[in-house]
């Protein structure tokens, strides 16, 4: 029999090393994320709940059909009525921060994958790993590096949620018809011009689908993130579970569902709405 590989020891050693020697990198990241969450949360709490509900319903009206605007109005009003408004906005801040970080990291990596087969071959298995490793496992090093609170929650959410943005950015660019790429080349475009003027605009629907998936995955992480002290609606669910309060759990869960439907439909329609506006303009 072979002795057991000390894999756990190795990973622990790596984590220790990162914590002790990369503090100068981790601290500004933590500060940045914390600032972003607080900033977004501050903005979301700026208006009274009713005004915010009307504003979001108007946004739904602008990009979607009236049915969606009505759903937004009723749904968000229900959240407010149940008493989860503030926590929902905290959660929204956490989700938006995770989504923004994912987009900022994910799109450039996706572009790099699209431009080099080698990069894609390296990145793809890492993404597979990130998506299949149980999300709870990320919480441990995230807490080690960033202590308890919202920051490790965002980090864990980003790790879990960034793969779709990378994959679909890569796919979107690769799916641009070869003759269009050839046409761009034949007119003497530089690689950067080709990317900005032809490939990215044509990849937008695919990239938006990736961002939509990323937001949904980030939202699905909020309960897990609450395990390490991220505040918001996820914490309400967690409390309800630990105290076996079915009614409370249902209420908080429903708030997450309403938020999810709103974000999903909105991001799906942003692209189409923009396209139609272009055509009219």
């Amino acid at each position, binding site marked *: 029999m072979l002795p057991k590989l000390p894999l756990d020891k190795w990973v622990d050693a790596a984590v220790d090393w990162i914590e002790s020697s990369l503090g100068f990198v981790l601290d500004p990241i933590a500060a940045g994320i914390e600032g972003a969450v607080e900033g977004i949360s501050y903005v979301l709490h700026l208006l009274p709940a009713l005004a915010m509900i009307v504003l979001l319903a108007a946004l739904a009206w602008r990009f979607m059909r009236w049915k969606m605007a009505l759903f937004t109005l009723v749904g968000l009003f229900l959240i407010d009525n149940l008493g989860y408004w503030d926590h929902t906005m905290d959660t929204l801040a956490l989700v938006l921060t995770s989504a923004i970080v994912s987009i900022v990291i994910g799109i450039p990596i996706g572009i790099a994958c699209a431009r080099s087969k080698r990069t894609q071959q390296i990145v793809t298995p890492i993404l597979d790993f990130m998506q299949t490793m149980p999300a709870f496992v990320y919480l441990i090093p995230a807490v080690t590096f960033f202590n308890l609170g919202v920051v490790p929650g965002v980090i864990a959410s980003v790790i879990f949620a960034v793969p779709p943005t990378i994959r679909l950015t890569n796919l979107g660019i690769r799916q641009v018809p070869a003759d269009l790429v050839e046409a761009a080349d*034949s007119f003497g475009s530089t690689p950067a011009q080709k990317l900005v003027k032809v490939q990215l605009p044509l990849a937008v629907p695919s990239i938006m689908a990736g961002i939509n998936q990323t937001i949904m995955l980030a939202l699905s992480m909020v309960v897990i993130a609450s395990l390490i002290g991220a505040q918001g609606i996820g914490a309400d669910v967690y409390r309800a579970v630990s105290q076996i309060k079915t009614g409370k759990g249902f209420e908080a869960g429903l708030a997450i569902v309403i938020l999810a439907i709103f974000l999903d439909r909105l991001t799906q329609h942003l692209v189409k709405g923009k396209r139609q506006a272009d055509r009219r303009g």
Partner: protein
Amino acid sequence: MPIIEVKDLTKVFGEDPKRISALLGQGWSKDRIFNETKHTVGVNRVSFSVEPGEIFVIMGLSGSGKSTLVRLLNRLIEPTSGMIEIDGQEITRLGADQLRTVRQKKISMVFQKFALFPHRTLLENVEYGLEVQKAPKAEREPKAREALKLVGLETRADSYPDELSGGMQQRVGLARALANDPDILLMDEAFSALDPLIRKDMQDELLDLQDTMKKTIVFITHDLDEALRIGDRIALMKDGAIVQIGTPEEIMVNPASEYVERFVEDVDLSKVLTAAHVMRRPETIGIDRGARVALQLMRESGISNLFVTDRSRRLIGVLTAEDASEAARRGLPLEDIVIRDAPTVAPGVLLNELFELVGSSKVPVAVVNETGRIVGVIVRGAVLGALAGHVPGREVDGDASETTAG
């Protein structure tokens, strides 16, 4: 001085193309190379040159390497070996920046499936070539509008490509290629995706544009009719190699190999042969001669019409036997009886455009060159004979003993 000069250009696809391209020099065939080395020969030691202002057609069936060949010219596909000179500049040795400059300024391309950018308006599509040259909007927009106007789409500048029919889309493709005023247009099966009537319109339009612009055009097609219609010269490709280069007439009349012959045997000759191919030597008489001399001449040659010319053989009209004998009786000069509105054609007119004229005219049709001199005469029998394959210079198996009497 040719604008494009290509020597021994070769493209081999596979893992070790350089080594394989050397085998071609040792006489290996495309099939043998594929069977024994799993490399595909795209283009096999092709050489040709194109003169400025020429429409050079590269024709072949699918898989003959013509689309690969045209992409080697602007290095959308990297050549394995050989030389491409454009305006004296060796293209195969250019660095990335220099190559971009050549693509921006000298060579534009029109694609089979149009390849318009669907997210850009027509104007923005046409502007693309100038945009990548970093021309300011104020400079590129008028040029782009001008190019759209050339193809008759200036009113649709703000439409999107998917709102247009195929023919219109390809006009935009053409305008986009013309907007940066290149010397050379590469047209890769540019009209093949269009239906036949639209295709013919586009060919006419291209020829019209070419009259004023005098670009050098390398045109790829698998359609022989199209090649014959628009090509000044045609290169026929098979298995990556050129089997024959020549004018449409040369290829039709003297096919270099059995392959070419098979290719051209079904072609409608009336679209290839011109008046010059089927005309006979005309019998003429000076206007200052008398009617009796004319009658005598007709009797000697056994014909019933004579062409009347001035001293420098410029055509004045045609004379019929009846009129001549009438004039001889009454002592009238030829001046009074010559039919001055006799039908004439230029030597370059295609046979299919001659049918109606020849069929409806009572007198033979004169072939007159640009200085007004008569160079030949068209008779009905000769036209029909030519269509049946009896072309002077080609194999003549029946005896074509028509007379100018028609």
